[in-house]
Structure formats: C-alpha cells, structure tokens
C-alpha cells in the first residue's frame, strides 16, 4: 500500500472524526483504566482480557472503575432526585394517612411499614409518604421503614431509583454498611448483593452524588460527599497489596477491588506523590487481615480511613503482588511490621491491637531505623549483595543452595540485573547475575557482562539459562535463538 495514498488519508481522517463523534455524541468517553492497569502491573504477566473481566456495555458517563465493576455482581442503586423532576408515575400516589401512613405502590396499592418488597425479573415502583417515589429494579429486595416525613428504606440487595422532595421530609437509604441521609438533592447508592444469595449480608456500599450533598455514615464514622463525588465503605479481607495499594475482597464477594492513598502535591517532578502517611498504613497492614475501609473516588478509590478488625490467622494467603516483590510462598510467616493478633502496639512499627483503628503514620520507618525483614529484597534488586544472618528470609533458590541447572523459557520481563523467565510448564522464575570480585569495597559486584546480556534480551524471546543457586538463582550463561 502506498504510504501516501490520498484515499487512505481520507479514510484515516474519517475514522478520526468517527472516534471524536462517538465520544462527543455517543458518550464513549475514554475510560479510567488506571486501576486495572496498576493491578495487572503487579501480577504475573498474562493477557489483558484474562486479568479483568471485560466491562459490559453500560452508560459511559457512569462508568465505575473496572475493579469495582468486577466486584459488583448485582448492585443496589438509589438515586434521590429533586422534586421538580417528578415523573408521571407520581400521579398514583395518595395522601399519607395518619398516624403511620402506609406507603403506596404503583402496582399493588397500599403498603404497610415493615413490609418487605422484592422483585424478580421486572421493575416495580411505589411511593413513600407522598414525597418519595421509589422505583425498584429487578432482583431487588428492601424493607419499608421510617415514619411520616422521615421515610427510610432498608436495602438488602438490588437496585432502586428514587425521587424525593426533600422540602417535605427527610429520606434515608440504609444498608448493613451504613446509612445515606439526604442533605442534598440527587445521589445514588449501590450495595452489591453478597455472593451466596439474598440471605448473606452485603458488606459494601457505594455512593455517588450528582447534586447537593449527602452524608454516608455508619459504625466506622461518617463521610460527607458533595456533588460529583463518589465514596463508600467496605468490609473484607486484604487480598493483596503492594507499596502503593491494597486490594480487598469484600465479604460475600469473589472479586477483590483495589484501593490506594490520595495523591498529594501535583506531579512527581513537582514533589507530588501518594499520601505518605497512608502508604505507611498500607505497609503496616498484613495480607489476610480483616479490615473496614472507607474510600472516596478520585480517579480511583482513595483510602479515607482503614480499620483493622482482625489480624490474619496463622497463615497468610500470599498475593501475587507480594510474590512478585517479596517472592513469598503461600504459608510463609508474616514479616515484621505486619499485624499479629493480640500483640502489643508499638507506635511507628505498624503494629496494633485487633480492632484498633490504624492511625496515619503507624508502620512507617523511623529515620535511621535499620531495614526490617523483607527490606533486604529491595537491596538485592539494586545490586547490593545481601548479608547473611541479618534475619532475612530464605528466598527462592535458598532451598537449592549450591545446586545448578538449566532452564528453558520465555522472557517475561528483564531489567538491569535480572531476567524473569516463564517455562512452558511452571511459574515465572527470576534470575540475577552472579556476584563476582568479593565485597563491594574490593570492587566486587554483579557480573557486568551478564547484566548487559540480560538487557539485550527481548520480552517474549525463548532462552536457555544455565544457573547456579547462591541464595538466589544466578545466571551463569544465557543462550538465545539469535546466537
């Protein structure tokens, strides 16, 4: 094809305008992919489509971050809309009787307080107190509560949309995770249905405010949200974490969602970065801990507060992110700095009692403090030779001490001083150069020729590596097909 073919030029221009029109008129705004990309970046390399389930078609303007969307199998939705936007369905409503006015339903007439309503495959709507119109989406269950001019519904699962004239009375949406009270005029709440059916309690709640403000409150405290803001609360197990995020598998859910600290201070070049105090908190929380987390959306869910409800029991299910950085295996002991149930709290070392709320700053290193266990791994990636007997854990390769072998596999990543190989069968293995020349002050260091050779490798390339184990697998020779 001629690279300057005018017809191709025209086609390309046409496609370009097509994309812009899809965005401008069709609402196909570029999605926020940061969450799924960061999560995928922390996991062993695999095809993107398998990393996250593909988002189903949904209104682009209301796209939730992919990780949250994956968490939500069936969501509860409640939007409280301003009174002047009442729909025609309100004509079915009647005057609220005294003293305990029954709610009216569009479909079935009067409805008593305490009534439990559920929908299966069809939507249904009803009125509360003459000023709150509620539409239940399919697979929704709620209980009518409250009193005159203080209407309230308890959502156990599903989706509802509401219109409320807040000038007439108050309205609240309650779930196990908390209550959303109208202080503004338009918002929506989602509480995902717990895995295992309606009898299981949902442990998540999502709120998005469109106009005005709401107060989301619960036993964990309260979170005011104003127009354009989203937030929520979740109780679950810390499924994985890295330095800058942690993912939580909510009780009753199969999927974990990722949460990270707020970003402070502009771009990195201007000194910006993640909230350092919250980074310390993340560092102090052990994988496997049961936590309650309150979050607010700023591009992705940012951690407002984090409370450890229970430390992990004996063994930790090691997440992929930790395996990658710390190379731990399932069943390994916790590192220092992570929570153990019942242990005494020592401020600054990130330990605390069960149930105690994690304070910002806990878990951070003190200046001049010696690196704790696990920190040595970072040293190795930097090329420093770790010293034996400093309390470091036995790493991959440790049990192979003195052994040697040959590995054949595909390069999944490489960098200055390491290469990761995925054999046809088996897990990704990391290889580092041998240490040669004695101690650093004697001129010793990683094999520079091997570092160069590793850097020349291409991701996806098949290689054969001759290795020897000296604390870790160290590449002696690398063969490629190009040779």
């Amino acid at each position, binding site marked *: *094809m001629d690279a300057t073919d005018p017809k191709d030029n025209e086609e*390309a221009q046409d496609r370009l305008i097509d994309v812009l029109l899809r965005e401008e008129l069709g*609402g196909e705004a570029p999605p926020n992919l*940061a969450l799924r*990309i960061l999560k995928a*970046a922390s996991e062993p*390399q695999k095809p993107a489509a398998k990393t996250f389930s593909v988002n189903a078609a949904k209104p682009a303007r209301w796209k939730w971050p992919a990780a949250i969307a994956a968490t939500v199998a069936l969501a509860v939705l409640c939007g409280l809309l301003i009174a002047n936007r009442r729909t025609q369905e309100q004509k079915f409503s009647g005057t609220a009787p005294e003293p305990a006015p029954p709610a009216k339903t569009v479909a079935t007439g009067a409805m008593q307080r305490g009534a439990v309503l559920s929908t299966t495959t069809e939507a249904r709507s009803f009125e509360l107190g003459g000023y709150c119109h509620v539409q239940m989406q399919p697979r929704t269950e709620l209980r009518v509560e409250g009193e005159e001019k203080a209407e309230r519904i308890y959502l156990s699962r599903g989706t509802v949309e509401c219109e409320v004239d807040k000038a007439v009375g108050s309205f609240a949406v309650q779930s196990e995770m908390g209550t959303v009270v109208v202080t503004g005029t338009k918002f929506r709440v989602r509480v995902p249905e717990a895995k295992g059916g309606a009898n299981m309690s949902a442990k998540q709640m999502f709120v998005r405010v469109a106009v005005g403000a709401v107060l989301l409150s619960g036993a964990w405290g309260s979170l005011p949200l104003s127009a354009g803001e989203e937030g929520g609360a979740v109780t679950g197990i810390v499924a994985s974490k890295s330095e800058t995020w942690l993912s939580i598998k909510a009780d009753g859910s199969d999927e974990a969602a990722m949460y990270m600290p707020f970003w402070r201070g502009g771009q990195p070049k201007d000194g910006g970065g993640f909230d350092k105090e919250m980074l310390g908190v993340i560092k102090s929380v052990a994988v496997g801990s049961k936590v309650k987390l309150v979050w607010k959306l700023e591009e992705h869910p940012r951690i407002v507060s984090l409370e450890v409800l229970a430390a992990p029991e004996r063994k930790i299910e090691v997440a992929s992110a930790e395996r990658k950085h710390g190379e731990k295996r399932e069943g390994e002991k916790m590192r220092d700095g992570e929570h153990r149930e019942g242990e005494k709290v020592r401020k600054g070392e990130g330990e605390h009692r069960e149930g105690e709320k994690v304070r910002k700053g806990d878990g951070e290193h003190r200046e001049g403090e010696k690196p704790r266990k696990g920190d040595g791994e970072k040293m190795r990636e930097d090329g420093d030779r770790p010293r034996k007997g400093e309390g470091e854990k036995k790493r991959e390769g440790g049990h192979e001490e003195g052994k040697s072998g040959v590995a054949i596999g595909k390069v999944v990543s490489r*960098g200055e001083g390491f290469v990761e190989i995925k054999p046809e069968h088996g897990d990704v293995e990391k290889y580092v150069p041998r240490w040669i020349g004695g101690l650093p002050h004697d001129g010793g260091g990683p094999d520079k020729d091997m570092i160069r050779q590793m850097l020349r490798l291409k*991701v996806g390339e098949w290689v054969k590596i001759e290795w020897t184990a000296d604390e870790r697998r160290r590449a002696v020779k690398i063969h490629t097909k190009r040779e």
Partner: protein
Amino acid sequence: MTHAELETLVRMHQAEVYRYVRYLGAESTSVAEDLAQETFLAAFRSRDLDAPRDERKQSAWLRGIARNLFLMHCRRSRSNPVHADSASLEQAEQIWKQEFLREGDGFETIEALRRCLETLGEKQRRMLKLHYAENKSRSELAELFAMSEDGIKSLMRRLRGALAQCIRRRLEAQ
C-alpha cells in the same frame, strides 16, 4: 519504572491511547480498553530501557507500542481490516499527528468539533445524534429519513468530511 510512575504515565496518556487504538480500528470498546491496558503494561515492563521523560515523546512512544499491539491483535484475531498493515498504520499515525495533535494534546480538536456540530443543520445534527447517541443502524436511518442505505452512508461520510474541514479551519484560526 515504579508503580507510582506508571500511574502518572497512565493518568497523563490513557485518554489519548484509548482514542488512538479506537482510531486505529479497535472494533469495540472492550478491545480498545484491553489494547490500551496492554500498551501501558508493555511500557511498564520495558523497565525504563526506552521510556522517554518528555511528555510528547512519551506520547509518541506509547502510540508506537499501541500500533504494534494493534497489528498483533489483527493478526491474532484474523480480523484483517484494510488499514491493518504496518505501512498504513504509519500513515494513520501521520494523520493523527497532523490532525488530532495539531494543537497540544487534542483537547482543542474536541472543542472545535463541539463548535462545528453547532453549525450543522437540524436534520444533519439529528442524523448524527441518532447514529452516534442512539446507535441507529444505517438501515434504520434510511427508513427514518426516507433515503437509501447508500445515501445515508455517503451523507454520513460527507458530514464527517465537512466536520473535519470545519475543525481544521477553527484550529487554524486560533
């Protein structure tokens, strides 16, 4: 590249990369999302070997990765659109730079499109809205506007051409 640097890179360039793979011909939003994700992951896994620091160079670098991934996607999925060869993708890149990135990061172009849409006639605007906002097919539009499907096709193409001209004029006038 650290995770924090990756996040910065994603925040700065994800909209452009997503639009770009859609423009190259990613057949659906989910394919475009996957390709955009893979683009950033490939950049991340390059371990700083090639990562430029300059924002514009970063953008060009990411587009280069995205083109390669799109080409691989086409070969793998055996979907073989006319434009899916490396030469025509290069040409598409030139158009992208000339048209979309004429002014900075492309937001001026979108703003110009917005204004150009306002200048269209009622019928033309309605047709575009039905097609792009309400996903009306060509045959449905043909029925609604009492035209042939081919007529709708060429009218839509002419409309897009006119919008492209209008955008160009507006950007040049700035």
